[in-house]
């Protein structure tokens, strides 16, 4: 149980593909716990992916229930091992920022609705349908597992901005 530092680009770990988790063992649980602690500590964060704390395994945590945009449409805290998007539809643009790429935000278009399959902390296979902000947050975190940053999905740098508001 520990709050871990968030790796910042250009740390090369952020650009690597994370490994599939063979079984949800103690080590996996420990990473999930560290992700939760790190997400809570950072206050404003709605999700963290394992590579962001230096663990190259396919684990993310997402919780948009405490955020203004996600509080009315969410699945609460999601602890996802080996998550995979099996269906996508619609599109939604948001201006994304990322803890691993501080001071920069960019417009990214993602699917509005997704169906995600993942293994939970208890080792159970789960399938959920997410939409709106939760869908965007999940897609953003899952990208980290494939070494993708939102910068890879930005189409125009022309309209970038710096930090939206000082926290």
């Amino acid at each position, binding site marked *: 149980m520990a709050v871990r530092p968030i790796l910042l680009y250009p740390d090369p770990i952020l650009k690597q593909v994370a490994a599939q988790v063979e079984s949800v063992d103690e080590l996996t649980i420990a990473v999930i716990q560290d992700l939760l602690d790190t997400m809570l500590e950072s206050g404003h*964060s709605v999700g963290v992916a394992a590579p962001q704390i230096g663990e190259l395994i396919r684990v993310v945590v997402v919780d948009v229930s405490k955020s203004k*945009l996600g509080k009315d449409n969410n699945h609460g805290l999601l602890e996802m091992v080996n998550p995979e998007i099996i269906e996508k539809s619609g599109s939604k643009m*948001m*201006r994304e920022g990322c803890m691993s790429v501080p001071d920069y935000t960019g417009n990214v278009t993602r699917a509005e609705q997704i169906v995600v399959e993942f293994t939970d902390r208890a080792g159970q296979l789960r399938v959920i349908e997410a939409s709106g902000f939760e869908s965007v947050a999940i897609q953003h975190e899952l990208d980290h597992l494939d070494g993708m940053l939102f910068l890879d999905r930005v189409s125009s740098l022309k309209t970038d*901005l*710096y930090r939206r*508001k000082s926290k």
Partner: protein
Amino acid sequence: MNHFALTIVGRDRAGIVSQVTKILFDLGCNIADSSCSILGGQFAMILILGHPEITDRDSFGDAFKPLEDSDLSVALRVLKPGGQIRTNIFGDICMISVYGSDKPGIVYRVAQALGEKNINITDLNTKLVGSDERPVYVMVIEAVLPENVEEEDVNGWLTPIRNDLQVDITVRTIPTVEL
């Protein structure tokens, strides 16, 4: 570091960017910020440059002469200290799409309405599309809304323009999220 704004415009062809950036590289200029695009048949480059030693226009000598010789227009502006730093504009980001049959005043009327309400335009692109017989004008604006201004307010302020110019206007804010 001293800063300059360089603009280059000329008939579009392959090789302009490499010709310009080779000169800048050889001069030891940093390209701090830039936007380059085709507008009509012209290629337009706008660059904010930094240089550790060069302080004035004359020091560039005839470095840009090869560009002028190949029919590119070159303009250099010396920035005052701090002129390269973008001031942080806080507020919700708003995209405004305007389109309709081409007629005079579309850009002006929309810009005027936004300016009056202190809405800062951060990006603006226009294009004439459609056929020769039925030209359609399209404009996309990115703007930053001041505090206490909502999407619906902007929508309302633009309604007279919708009616006067018979154009379609949509306003949508893009939420900023920290993930």
